């Protein structure tokens, strides 16, 4: 703060030009005035209109338009080989990818700016048969059987599809999409190549979609025993959504955003190696399809403070 500390002129003091000039010079201290010289409540927010908190926003279509869960819809099937996991970019029924294209006016994130992305999609996971009961399917465990005898293997029912966010911060050609910070590609290799997936800590921009709901309805579960392997209850069409946020630590230019599907995945953990992290791994022995209709991808750039 520019504090002026100068005693007042006293009667009897000589009228000195030097004193007068020094007094006037008090008011011309270059760069000395700062926010502490401003009285409280001197400015209202409405006075500062050139730097709005919200900088940019955009909404894009995902998948197909229309509200009804009828055609056109888009479908894809599960991963069948660890060598080529499914990476399905959200697209319409004609195969045209539905991405948020910012290349005509890219968003430049200054340090501290926050990028917030929201998405929603209506989905329908389906399958035939009971792939979760296959001998090689993940997630099976043994429980006692009603009436005694050998244990029954039931499923934990935790198979899922995953939708995650990617961005292109390289150029407007949109040929360099990569997962956003904190998100992996599910291409880590585990157990000497027997498994592939990613650590759960790298799913910051992932929405998981339940593949099926399997449980022991009716009198299946009784007194801690089961009389069957349970049954699947149709989940039907349902809405799914996700949110992601990123605070730029350095200048970043965003040219495009897109949502990518993969699956089927199943929970696991690295039981052979410390720190025994939780994982999501592909289960190529669990078959199914995911059909989706459409939704929205919304992005917002705002000032961090």
């Amino acid at each position, binding site marked *: *703060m520019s*504090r*002026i500390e100068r*005693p007042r002129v006293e009667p*009897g003091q000589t009228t000195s030009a030097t004193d007068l000039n020094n007094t006037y010079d008090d008011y011309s201290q270059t760069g000395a005035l700062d926010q*502490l010289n401003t*009285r*409280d409540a001197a400015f209202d927010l409405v006075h500062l209109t050139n730097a709005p908190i919200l900088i940019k926003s955009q909404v894009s279509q995902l998948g197909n338009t229309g509200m009804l869960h009828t055609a056109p819809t888009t479908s894809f099937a599960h991963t069948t080989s660890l060598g080529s996991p499914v990476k399905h970019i959200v697209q319409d029924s004609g195969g045209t990818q539905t991405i948020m294209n910012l290349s005509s006016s890219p968003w430049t994130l200054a340090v501290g700016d926050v990028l917030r992305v929201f998405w929603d999609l209506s989905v329908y996971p389906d399958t035939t048969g009971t792939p979760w009961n296959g001998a090689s399917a993940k997630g099976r465990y043994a429980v006692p059987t009603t009436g005694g005898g050998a244990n029954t293997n039931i499923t934990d029912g935790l198979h899922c599809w995953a939708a995650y966010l990617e961005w292109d911060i390289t150029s407007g050609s949109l040929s360099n999409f990569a997962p956003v910070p904190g998100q992996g590609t599910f291409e880590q290799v585990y157990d000497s190549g027997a498994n592939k997936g990613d650590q759960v800590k790298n799913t910051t921009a992932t929405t998981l979609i339940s593949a099926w709901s399997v449980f022991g309805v009716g009198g299946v579960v009784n007194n801690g025993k089961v009389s069957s392997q349970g049954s699947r209850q149709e989940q039907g069409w349902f809405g799914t959504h996700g949110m992601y946020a990123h605070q730029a630590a350095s200048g970043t230019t965003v040219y495009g955003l897109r949502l990518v599907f993969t699956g089927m995945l199943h929970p696991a953990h690295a039981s052979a190696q410390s720190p025994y992290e939780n994982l999501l791994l592909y289960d190529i022995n669990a078959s199914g399809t995911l059909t989706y209709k459409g939704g929205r991808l919304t992005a917002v750039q705002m000032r961090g403070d």
Partner: protein
Amino acid sequence: MKGSTVQVRILGGMQQTLPQEIEHATLIENMTLDEDTQAFSSRVGYERYRPDPADQFNPFGALGRIDSVYVLQQLPGGARQSVLIEAGNTLYLYLETGQQNVLVGLASRTAPTATDTPSVFTQWQDRVIVTNGLDAPIIIRPWPLAASTDITSAMKDAIVRPLGFYGPPAAPEMLQIATIAAVTGGSINSSAGFTGNSTTNWYPVRPQAIAYPGRFGLGQSSAESDNRIRFRVSYLSDTGSESPLSTDSLATWRIETNNSGFRYAPSMRLPLGPRGTVARRVYRTLNDEQSYLFVDDVRNNAEQLYHTSVSGTGATAPDDLASVPFPAPNARVCAVFKDCVFLDGGRDQSTTIFFSNPGRPDQYGGLDYITLDGRGGEVTGLYAYNNNLIVLRSAGIDVLTGAYPSFTVQTVTSQVACRAPNSIDSVPGIGVVFLAEDGVYVLRGGLDGGAQFEVVSLGVGIRKELQRMTLECASRAVGRYAPLERAYHLYLPVDGNDRPNLGCVFHLDKQAWSLRTGFPVGAIDRLHDGTLVFGHNTGAEAAGSNPPAGLFVLSAIRSMGGAIVGDNYEPGAAPVSVYESCWHDMGDAQVKKQVQYVTLWCQTRGDVTIDFRYYKDFENAEVASDNRFIYQPPDRANQPVLGSAVVGTDKWQDARLVPIRLPTALQSCSWFKFRIDTTDDILLVGYEVEYASRGSVVIEGKQR
């Protein structure tokens, strides 16, 4: 020719308006009133609150300007005195118990700007409420505390917390009641039928089955009866206040066919309350009814699982308006009156006053507020006085009377604008003194028994000094009555300065003003013994290494603080005390006179050095000065003085009232004034001026 004498036997205070009355003074600076003789004494100064010379300014050395000081008395006689300080962005407790000397940071607070009002502190029982208009009001109870190294965040959370409840509790989470499955004959399988999140706690009803039938368990017990009982909870704080009631939760169960005779005890998880919660209170309805009745107090803020075993209920629950979320989160000022806490609405509702339930500073009713007439401007101060609450506003003064919940407000004046809530204090025999935009005023009187309130200007004598006030920073002026000195001290920023740099002292016994200069008061309060303690107005913001910082007290020490020399603290020099008489015209300013002597009536002080100067006709330059005279009996042997008195030989002395006759040599004058400056002790009782006059008068006015 025969000389004449002007006698001023008893000195008055300052009077700067012209012409002056002869007993008044042009300037009294750095003087106080001697309590024995009511004479002006130069024994003033200030020293560090903590006097250890090797301690420098610890623990305050890093503090800049101290914005607020408050001394909280928690036991009579100062047995449990806590000093709270705000500096930078932190509220500190100065922990000096158990031989400690440390600052404990209690809470982050927004620092006021130079034009803001600093925090206002209000005592409630053994707690203090702190409001500053920017942060949420907090309530502090700084006792008991461990040694500073053992004070944890949890301990701080226990002694500092937000005032009031900011919302109702979450509804209690009812566990489902899994009723006993009907069994025809045979034994009851009590483990059957429950699922996750449910309980099966039951009591039989029949007298053959239980010692006190009907006392335990809730609801109907006959077969196929439906039971619906609703529960709500509230928090009880450590001040005995009750929070708003939660929304309700429903416990419902049905007694199955062939299964009569069971009453159930619904179980729930109670929410945990915010800091300061000491109990949760449970209310319920009777079966299928709407009114809530008291069930129980869970006397802690830890247990969550609660079983409603006993069927009895108590009083009706308070209605939803009895306690609402805290209505004044931006309150700037606060006061306690008629057992209620009063707060202003802050910048958002600056003409509204909210008040708490009596005895419950955290509990505010939905209708417990008063909206003031908008013409008086926003509330700038609240002060409880006699049977009223004084509401000082930016363009007037109102008074609030009555008792909870029926308070009323009426306007006393619309012309006086108090801008400095920290300058308000009650002065015995005078009234409530405060600094307004145009001077110092006193509010006195009342509304009972036909009395009236009046607002009287108190600062007429020093109006010229008060006009020097930096109006923008008037809110930073601080004032306190000092019982030890029987004086009201006011420190205000003047001459464009942004922090107090001039003191004005109103001496109660003389009803007179004097000035104090060189006292770096940033904020002030009084200790239990009446001593004024203040926080430095600059601290570490000053240039140089180890500038003075922290707490100081106004005392009779003959130094102005001190400085660090080497590694130790050394007291500074004594202040310069000044007495400047009024301009005497001896009855007629047109008549020329020759002043021959000034006789000062003083109590002897020893071989002190007093500079005596005299002036004529409003000239600034002195005619002459003289410091030859010592203040010993002029016609008796000198009294022994320190530094030369011999122990065992010299006797202890009593100060004597003696005339010190000082010659003056000036030619004719119309007006005469003298001045004494000293850094030594002086006790000035009165004076005389001897003069002669030939009767000649001034010549006619000067022409161009």
